[in-house]
């Protein structure tokens, strides 16, 4: 269809476009390679394939924003279709007589079956419509409806270009491209219809009936359509639309170790005899995979939506973190300001206060459709800030100092750890003095906090009731170190691991059982790397087994309770422990209602990542308060006279939510209970024990 001159011009332009595009890709690849070594990946081709399939079925975006994700299907399948469509367009331009209109009946060499040609045309035509609708919806959403979720709060550190609306410009350019490109092509198809409508090109036919056919029009439309492509291809390397290709790659190269296992502070692999300081200060201190994250980021802000710190008004936005990284890279590479990469990330990408606001709940990593890990960046930043002697929150400093000296963060003497156990009617074995089947790792909060101790004792009584052989370490137990590691104090974490491994060495046991999800997480996922490989179980799983084995029997079911369950981050989202608590609630016969944000989508209580040490009084609604309100709304949808309970299986949750019930003025409307309290009641462990729990205020 094209003239020779047109063909030559196109080839030249295509080469120029390709040159810029390749340069853009190379810039990205070079940038990513400058990052630090990342943990080894096995079987990369298989992972990439799996990731490709996930992307093909668009599974990852549907974790949130279902309606917008559905509309995105239009964009996704539309653009994939258009990859082929554009190829065909180029062929049609270059090969004379190669015209697929009207089922290809005008084809000079009719080797393609008409059926395929018609199918192709129909797909292309309808996809054009879908694309236009989808892109229009998204543009309206961003520019007319001004969806707040696409914005950042005032107190979040933003790259100046982002603050000035760079993301909107980017979206506009690509949006205009899609509209013009698709519209031009539709018109091009319309102008080619010389014999009236082609039933397999419905939209083009409509345009044809309105505007007729035109040889010139065909050429112009072709040039607009494909000229835009030549322009947009290099542009995309500088836009968030790199996610077209980088997203599946990023997903395929996702870390393969457990969620609850942090990347090492210093890469295990050392290249060129480099000396690595722990953690990260500048962008290329991050492992290469997390530099790639910046290029995969679609800047959708799903992570910001689920961040509990962001929710309560803190200056943290995981989305801003990745967006800022991307814009920083752009400035440093395409923008010719490489010196900006030498600036600390705490000046360019995320503020120090934001770094210390993170609760390490993993919600941002879990919801990200392209496999980004903003939380991991934050932990790396903390690691380096601690080593560099950054000023720490006094509560955190006190907690760390207490952990270093006393092995617990509450500044209590080591000897007091087992005091609660010594007060039990039936003595609890000391696992360092006699062998036990189950070593119960109790944790700081459950051992020392007066509000939680009644629950700890109840667990002991239920275990005793079931004839479970168990013991505790008494004063030989130290904090497991989960939150210490996530605050960035890697050295102290190692010290605590050593202390605990030493204590474990003194004991003989088959498995470790714990009531504390934070301890559960690190014992299970991180201790093996330090030489401590054990079978680790959360007590909910233990209870289920005890019921199944008949060692515990339900004397009276509890249908008079209407309950909802909060999945603790470190048991649920991190380690998939959703079934056991629900099985127990089912067995107990309570009236159970699921909150909207449940299982992997659970909403953090806000205590993790060192927040509970900071004692910072945050203005505005706290995550725990919001969660209590969610629970009440859920339960009150089914109004009846039953007692409403908020069930937890984590000592920190117990504290945070009991507090939130009071501060939201809901005392009397809902009670926070540990699952063990219900189990104890159903199994008939002495009533006097329950009254004791009530009296000490643990049950509000």
């Amino acid at each position, binding site marked *: 269809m094209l003239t020779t001159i047109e063909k030559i011009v196109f080839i030249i332009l295509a080469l120029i476009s390709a040159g810029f595009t390749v340069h853009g890709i190379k810039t990205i690849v070079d940038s990513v390679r400058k990052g630090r070594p990342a943990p080894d990946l096995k079987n990369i081709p298989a992972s990439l394939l799996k990731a490709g399939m996930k992307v093909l079925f668009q599974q990852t975006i549907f974790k949130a924003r279902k309606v917008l994700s559905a509309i995105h299907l239009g964009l996704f399948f539309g653009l994939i279709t258009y990859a082929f469509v554009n190829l065909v367009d180029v062929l049609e331009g270059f090969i004379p007589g190669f015209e697929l209109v009207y089922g290809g009946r005008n084809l000079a060499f009719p080797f393609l079956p008409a059926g395929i040609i018609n199918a192709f045309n129909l797909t292309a035509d309808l996809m054009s419509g879908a694309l236009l609708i989808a892109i229009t919806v998204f543009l309206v959403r961003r520019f007319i409806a001004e969806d707040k979720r696409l914005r950042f709060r005032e107190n979040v550190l933003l790259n100046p270009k982002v603050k000035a609306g760079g993301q909107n410009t980017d979206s506009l350019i690509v949006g205009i491209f899609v509209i013009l490109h698709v519209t031009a092509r539709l018109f091009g198809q319309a102008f080619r219809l010389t014999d009236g409508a082609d039933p397999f090109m419905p939209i083009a036919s409509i345009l044809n009936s309105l505007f007729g056919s035109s040889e010139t029009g065909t050429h112009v439309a072709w040039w607009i359509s494909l000229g835009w492509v030549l322009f947009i291809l290099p542009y995309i390397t500088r836009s968030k639309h790199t996610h077209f290709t980088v997203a599946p790659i990023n997903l395929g190269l996702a870390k393969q170790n457990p969620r609850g296992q942090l990347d090492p502070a210093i890469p295990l692999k050392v290249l060129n005899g480099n000396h690595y300081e*722990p953690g990260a200060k500048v962008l290329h201190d991050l492992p290469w995979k997390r530099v790639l994250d910046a290029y995969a980021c679609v800047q959708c802000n799903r992570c910001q939506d689920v961040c509990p710190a962001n929710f309560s008004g803190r200056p943290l936005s995981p989305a801003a973190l990745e967006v800022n990284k991307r814009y920083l890279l752009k400035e440093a590479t395409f923008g010719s300001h490489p010196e900006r990469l030498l600036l600390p990330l705490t000046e360019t990408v995320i503020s120090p206060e934001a770094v210390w606001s993170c609760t390490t709940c993993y919600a941002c990593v879990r919801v990200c459709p392209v496999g980004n890990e903003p939380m991991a960046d934050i932990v790396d930043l903390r690691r380096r800030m*601690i*080593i560099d*002697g950054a000023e*720490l929150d*006094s509560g955190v*400093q006190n907690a*760390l*100092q207490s952990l*270093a*000296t*006393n092995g617990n963060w509450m*500044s*209590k*003497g080591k*000897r*007091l750890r087992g005091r609660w156990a010594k007060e039990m009617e039936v003595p609890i074995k000391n696992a360092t003095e006699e062998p036990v089947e189950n070593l119960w790792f109790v944790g700081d909060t459950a051992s020392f906090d007066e509000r939680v101790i009644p629950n700890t004792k109840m667990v002991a009584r239920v275990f005793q009731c079931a004839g479970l052989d168990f013991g505790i370490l008494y004063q030989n137990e130290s904090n497991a170190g989960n939150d210490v590691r996530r605050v960035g*104090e*890697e*050295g*102290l974490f*190692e*010290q605590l691991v050593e202390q605990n491994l030493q204590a474990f060495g003194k004991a003989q046991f088959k498995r470790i059982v714990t009531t504390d999800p934070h301890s559960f997480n690190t014992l299970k996922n991180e201790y093996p790397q330090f030489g401590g490989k054990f079978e680790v179980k959360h007590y909910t799983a233990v209870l289920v087994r005890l019921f199944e084995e008949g060692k515990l029997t339900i004397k009276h079911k509890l249908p008079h309770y209407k309950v909802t369950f909060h999945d603790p981050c470190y048991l649920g989202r991190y380690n998939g422990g959703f079934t056991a608590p629900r099985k127990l609630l089912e067995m107990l016969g309570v009236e159970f209602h699921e909150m909207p944000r449940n299982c992997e989508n659970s909403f953090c209580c806000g205590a993790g990542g060192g927040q509970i040490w900071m004692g910072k009084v945050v203005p505005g609604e706290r995550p725990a308060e919001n969660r209590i309100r969610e629970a009440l709304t859920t339960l009150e949808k089914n109004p009846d006279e039953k007692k409403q309970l908020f069930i937890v299986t984590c000592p920190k949750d117990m504290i945070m939510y009991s507090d939130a019930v*009071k501060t939201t003025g809901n*005392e009397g409307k809902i009670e926070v209970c540990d699952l063990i309290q219900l189990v104890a009641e159903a199994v008939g462990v002495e009533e006097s024990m329950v009254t004791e729990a009530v009296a000490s*205020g643990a049950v*509000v």
Partner: protein
Amino acid sequence: MNIVVAIKHIPSIADDLPVKGNNIDFDSVDFVLNEFDEQSIEQAVLVKEAVGGTVTVVGVDLIGELDGVLHLALAKGADKAIKVTADEPGADSHMQAKWLAEAIKAMTPDLIFTGVQASNDLDGQIGPMIAAYLDMPYIGGVSSVEAADGTAIVTKEFAGGMAGKYSVRLPMVVGVQAASKPPRYAPISKVRQVAQTATIEKVDPVGEASAGLAMKKMAPPVMSGHAEMIEGSAKEVAAKIVELLKNRGLV
């Protein structure tokens, strides 16, 4: 500038203290660094960072567990660590001050920092005593130190928010109450690194001094009274307090 920090390893008061006979049972109590020594170490490092020089930390090792404390001081910025190996858990301040003074003498320091007091200073603090043994001036209760060319300007805190600035010809001994900045945090990995690479010099205790006090008794105070405790949840406590205040016309 040659700066020395003399520290004191003291019985921990985190738990109840065990008693044996007419004194503390020093064999079964935990020992910790005097909290004012944390301030003193920080102030010394701050002065070093301002004017250059070296910081040497020295302490009497009473129960053989001083290394951890010395490593911590090194991780916070001290350059050298010395321990006087005494193995005398019950050594009083006079004895420790004497041994420390003898160990410090040879170092010809410009500035000696100590914590202003310690909770076991029954027979007085080691700071003024070291000053007396070394014939140097002493100023305690100090909250800031600036040093240059043989002189130090120190700020001494008095009661009621008053303070006094003094100019002192070095060498001198300073009893630190609070460093001019809160003590920095020393990451454990740094402390462990130090523990592996640093060498702590050992010296024998030289000299003799005694508190000259005959111990008659050591016991927890007999409390004459106790507060009337308000029970209940925080809301109930708050309500009762407000009621109390209203009844007394205070609100």
